[in-house]
């Protein structure tokens, strides 16, 4: 069962990539507005929630770090901790999980319902490729959404982290704090962050669309399929994160 799902998701990912490349100029006046709508749904509309989470995350990470660092006077490591924890690990993973919960779930339910109500066959009946019309905009929207929201999440977390430092009267000037952050970052962080977040978004889109569309569904099966898609989405994100962790270790 596991291997069949992996095979199915892999094939679906390749088909989607092929459709993105092959049909880039097919019906742009219909598809591009849908892509813009999906970018808005998986990006702009989620920004307030992401900023709130970033604010809380900055306080939590810095609050805990400061309480430990104060015991050893090791305030020089605050920047390193922020980069290691927020930029490399927590930021992208949290953004992916939030995206999965907010947009991925909606994807499976929408597509599963459309499948159960024969809307997918209706698209085929009028000669419209369901992958092109339903999947490609969602996958592009989620890929760009996870990438952009992770950037905003990290920036806001770093800023709220300094606010926490300031409120706790830690003797760390803004210039020193941001200098520590800059010193802890390398070009590899930026490159791998971009790759990782795009991979998160792409595969969340693929897994959720696959479960909504790939099999004929009845309405009563949509909830079960949604739960399975979200669980597999989390597993995929953790696996991608592990792959990038190994890349960091060997870089």
């Amino acid at each position, binding site marked *: 069962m596991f291997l069949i799902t992996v095979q199915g998701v892999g094939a679906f990912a390749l088909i989607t990539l092929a459709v993105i490349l092959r049909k880039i100029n097919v019906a742009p006046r219909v598809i591009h507005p849908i892509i813009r709508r999906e970018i808005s749904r998986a990006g702009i509309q989620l920004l307030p929630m992401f900023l709130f989470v970033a604010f809380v995350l900055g306080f939590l990470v810095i609050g805990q770090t400061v309480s430990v660092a104060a015991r050893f006077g090791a305030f020089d490591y605050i920047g390193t901790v922020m980069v290691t924890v927020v930029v490399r690990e927590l930021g992208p993973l949290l953004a992916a999980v939030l995206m999965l919960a907010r947009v991925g779930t909606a994807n499976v339910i929408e597509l599963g319902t*459309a499948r159960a109500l024969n809307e997918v066959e209706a698209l085929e009946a009028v*000669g419209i490729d369901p992958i092109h019309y339903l999947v490609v905009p969602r996958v592009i929207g989620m890929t760009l959404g996870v990438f952009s929201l992770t950037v905003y999440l990290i920036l806001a977390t770093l800023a709220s982290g300094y606010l926490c430092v300031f409120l706790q009267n830690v003797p760390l000037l803004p210039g020193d704090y941001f200098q520590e952050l800059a010193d802890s970052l390398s070009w590899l962080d930026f490159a791998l962050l971009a790759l990782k977040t795009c991979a998160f978004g792409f595969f969340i889109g693929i897994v959720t669309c696959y479960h909504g569309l790939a099999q004929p569904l009845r309405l009563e099966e949509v909830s079960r399929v949604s739960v399975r898609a979200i669980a597999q989405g989390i597993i995929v994100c953790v696996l991608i994160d592990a792959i990038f962790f190994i890349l960091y270790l060997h870089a």
Partner: protein
Amino acid sequence: MSDNPHPVIEMRDVTIGAMNDPAFVMLEKVNWTVAPGEFWVIGAPPYSGKSDFLMTTAGLIPPAGGCYKFCGNETRIFDESRLADRLRMGFIFETASLFHYLTVAENVALPLCYHKNLDPGQGAEAIAELLELTELKPIAGVTPANLPRSWSKRAGLARALTLQPDILVADNPLGGLEARHVHWWVHFLDELSRGHKYFGGKPMTIIAATDDLRPWRGGNRRFALLKDKHLVPLGSWDEAILSADPLVKELIAAPAEAVESPR
């Protein structure tokens, strides 16, 4: 009639599986030929496989076996390479299957906008004419969730006609309709069959499935029956009513509910 020498649809020993479970055989050894311009009415009780049969006919699901030819070319399913063939055939789903997030007008316009790469406003004139023709103009801005069943089906018909197909396949188009709508549908499909001026006067090949033959009486139609996993041609209405088959008598005489039988 078309100049095309080939039958539009030709089935030889075709086996048809269920859409949700292709291994489950709904019909077998189907031998059927549809000539250009013919109007076929396929009578069948519910759960006899008429939706699967029509979806196979329309190339939406592949036959499980046998030989299916569309306009002389052997076909399994209308994939990307057969897009031109796909667009020659309009399909009306039993439940209309309108896209729930689009209005009636957007549903009808989508095939045109997609295939001609038009902005929503560009195809407006042609779509307005089609909406007028199908009396959908007053509800053009309504989403499917707020439509009565009769009007949903009408919108499904308009969407199927948007690309001006040569062949129209309708899955139980009269099922659950009010009497006024039934009359309108039969009259409109007859006009399409004879050649409607909106479609350039060219006769359209029509295949409609039904669980009640009564509204289809008369006219220049051909009838067939789905029974015991087989397609049984009945001929014209006059020939059909002479049939001794009890199922034909039930479909001609009784309300649909009376002949309902489980799969």
